[in-house]
């Protein structure tokens, strides 16, 4: 079967929950005003950040591991079609059925059909970004199939009728009291006197989920890695809910983005060191599940893999932007990002928030459809420093900004400024004009307050003076001082 990584025409863009419904600045404005949200984010990201630093600093060859991780991913991107075919052959030989989905809608349709064929009207789910991306839960619900999230944070988000706001910690925007309230309100079997202690909350979720695991006929998962040589899928997790889903039901459907491929089993050695240390700040994640097709008499006997493109081939076609596909979804970039830390994940309007989301979502949808996201960064570079696969996020942000549609007024101003600045004569004249124009204003300010700043400027400069005094041109420019000596 022809796979979607080598379509006949131009690779198509993706669908699902990857398009920001509101421009980032608009969505971020209300998030920034929410003090509780900011406090929750601050506490959580600081804690994970500290753990990551300790877990990374103790590895003497961390730099070499990052290099290896980046090199393996770059190699995969160079020969993805070949590796995908190899994966399909190996997984099929091991008893799995491999399905190809061009986009989110096709992937959802496949999962719905497979679930119906298994005679089930509910599925248990392992935490998975790919299924969030394609909005699988909504598609299943529309087909009359209930999807039960079993990861604790995903369960919280699902019970709260909310969407995830972090890749690793989907409920990072809640504190424990808010979580208790959601459980009391929406978890039918939660004790009425449920407290807000983490142990109590986890126990309530455990009892609630146990029943689901035992009843489910179908499980849906994603995968952190897919090994081309062997057809093996890998899920790493912390809670053990994944292990339950991957072993108990009869049917297992795994939705996997095509970029998850690694060539050989040995390559996992690199990523299974990089991922937990970058992600949860642990030396090793508690549960690593690997399965290769069907093992007769043990675990799911009806095993499916849905390989999803959903815009990834379009990303692959951009030699600068394609390294965004190296992402192993560790979230280290979110946890260090000062913009994510203030705005939170929902402001990005995509299942992929933070710095990686700001480069991945616009590439999956086409930049015009997510035009505000490449600008949702100060280019401070903290993300690139922690990325375990060395994605140069600031470079890709700047690259995508070139493709974004620009507001007409801004474009006119930038072109005019460029026209002035490309000529030494025009620039010298402009400096003189600016200095003279500000002269009386500066002298007046100077007398009244002793500072050379302005407190209020008209639009569009009011965006600056709303929170900051604005500097004035100096009474004498540097070049005027230089000429006078």
């Amino acid at each position: 079967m022809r796979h979607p990584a080598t379509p006949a025409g131009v690779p198509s863009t993706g669908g699902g929950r990857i398009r920001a419904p509101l421009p980032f600045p608009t969505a971020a404005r209300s998030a920034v005003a929410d003090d509780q949200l900011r406090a929750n984010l601050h506490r959580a990201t600081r804690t994970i950040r500290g753990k990551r630093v300790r877990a990374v600093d103790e590895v003497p060859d961390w730099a070499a591991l990052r290099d290896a991780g980046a090199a393996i991913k770059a190699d995969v991107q160079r020969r993805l079609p070949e590796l995908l075919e190899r994966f399909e052959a190996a997984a099929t030989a091991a008893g799995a059925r491999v399905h190809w989905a061009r986009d989110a809608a096709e992937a959802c349709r496949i999962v719905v059909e497979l679930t119906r064929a298994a005679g089930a009207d509910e599925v248990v789910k392992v935490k998975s970004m790919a299924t969030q991306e394609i909005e699988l839960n909504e598609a299943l619900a529309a087909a009359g199939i209930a999807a039960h999230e079993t990861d604790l944070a995903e369960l919280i988000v699902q019970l709260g009728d909310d969407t995830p706001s972090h890749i690793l910690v989907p409920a990072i925007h809640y504190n424990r009291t808010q979580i208790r309230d959601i459980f009391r309100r929406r978890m039918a079997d939660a004790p009425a006197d449920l407290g807000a202690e983490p142990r109590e909350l986890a126990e309530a979720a455990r009892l609630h989920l146990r029943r689901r695991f035992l009843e489910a006929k179908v499980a849906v998962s994603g995968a952190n890695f897919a090994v081309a040589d062997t057809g093996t899928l890998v899920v790493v997790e912390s809670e053990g809910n994944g292990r339950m889903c991957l072993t108990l039901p009869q049917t297992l459907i795994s939705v996997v983005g095509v970029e998850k491929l690694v060539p050989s089993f040995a390559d996992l050695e690199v990523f299974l060191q990089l991922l937990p240390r970058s992600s949860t700040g642990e030396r090793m994640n508690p549960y690593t599940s690997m399965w290769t097709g069907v093992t007769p008499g043990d675990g799911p006997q009806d095993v499916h893999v849905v390989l999803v493109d959903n815009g990834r081939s379009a990303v692959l076609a951009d030699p600068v932007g394609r390294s965004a596909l190296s992402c192993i979804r560790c979230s280290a970039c979110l946890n260090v990002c000062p913009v994510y830390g203030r705005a939170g994940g929902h402001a990005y309007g995509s299942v992929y928030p933070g710095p990686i989301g700001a480069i991945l979502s616009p590439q999956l949808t086409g930049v015009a459809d997510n035009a505000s996201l490449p600008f949702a960064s100060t280019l401070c570079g903290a993300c690139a420093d922690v990325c375990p696969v060395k994605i140069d996020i600031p470079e890709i942000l700047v690259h995508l900004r070139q493709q974004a549609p620009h507001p007409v007024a801004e474009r006119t101003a930038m072109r005019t400024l460029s026209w002035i600045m490309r000529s030494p004569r025009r620039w010298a004249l402009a400096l003189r004009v600016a200095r003279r124009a500000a002269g009386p204003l500066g002298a007046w300010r100077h007398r009244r307050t002793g500072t050379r700043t302005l407190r209020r400027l008209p639009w569009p400069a009011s965006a600056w003076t709303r929170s900051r005094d604005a500097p004035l041109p100096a009474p004498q420019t540097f070049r005027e001082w230089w000429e006078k000596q």
Partner: protein
Amino acid sequence: MRIALFITCVNDLAYPQTGIAVTRILRRLGHTVEFPVAQTCCGQMHANTGYRAEAVPMVRGFADTFDGYDAVVAPSGSCTAMIRDQYPRLHPAAASVAGRTYELSELLVDVLGVTDVGAAFAQTVTYHPTCHSLRMLRLGDKPLTLLRHVRGIRLVELDDATECCGFGGTFALKNAAVSTAMLADKCARVRETGAAVLAAADNSCLAHIGGGLDRARSGVRAMHYAEILAMTGHYA
């Protein structure tokens, strides 16, 4: 050695005292500084806002203006990072001069081998390492090393120093709410130090943080660290 000063557009217009300071420091150390008047802007704002094509004429102009010098010094981590990181890709002929362009502390410490510039400044100072000087140029503690050798100075550590102040060029306008939230945290950390002066390697970031500090009437003065290094008497 022929040293040229690249003042940067923002400094030329609004912070001439920083350029005057760089000139004084280098002259005090026995060097001649030249100021090629044909210089304009490095083009960073254009390139980073999505107008690379509009930045290229400035890149070409920079290469033409500074090509004959042994070293170009700029009192800005961000502009130096733009030149060194993006110029070779935007205009390959600019790669050579980009490799000879230094942020002030790089020129002093790495090229000239100086850590004590003979300055005196009796004030409590805290230092904010600007993002591009920290993560693109990897200045490390070069500016701090220079500041530590200033007579009379009391350097106090800034909490969360490596966290971005929220300026980010056009980000400060396009995402004013987030920028302001980051600024509020940075200003709070600065005020907690009790320092009278906040020093940094970029006047653009300082215009933002200083603008926030002024708005709050904090009394903390934002200064480019070059201006401290230029002081020889006691600061009044």
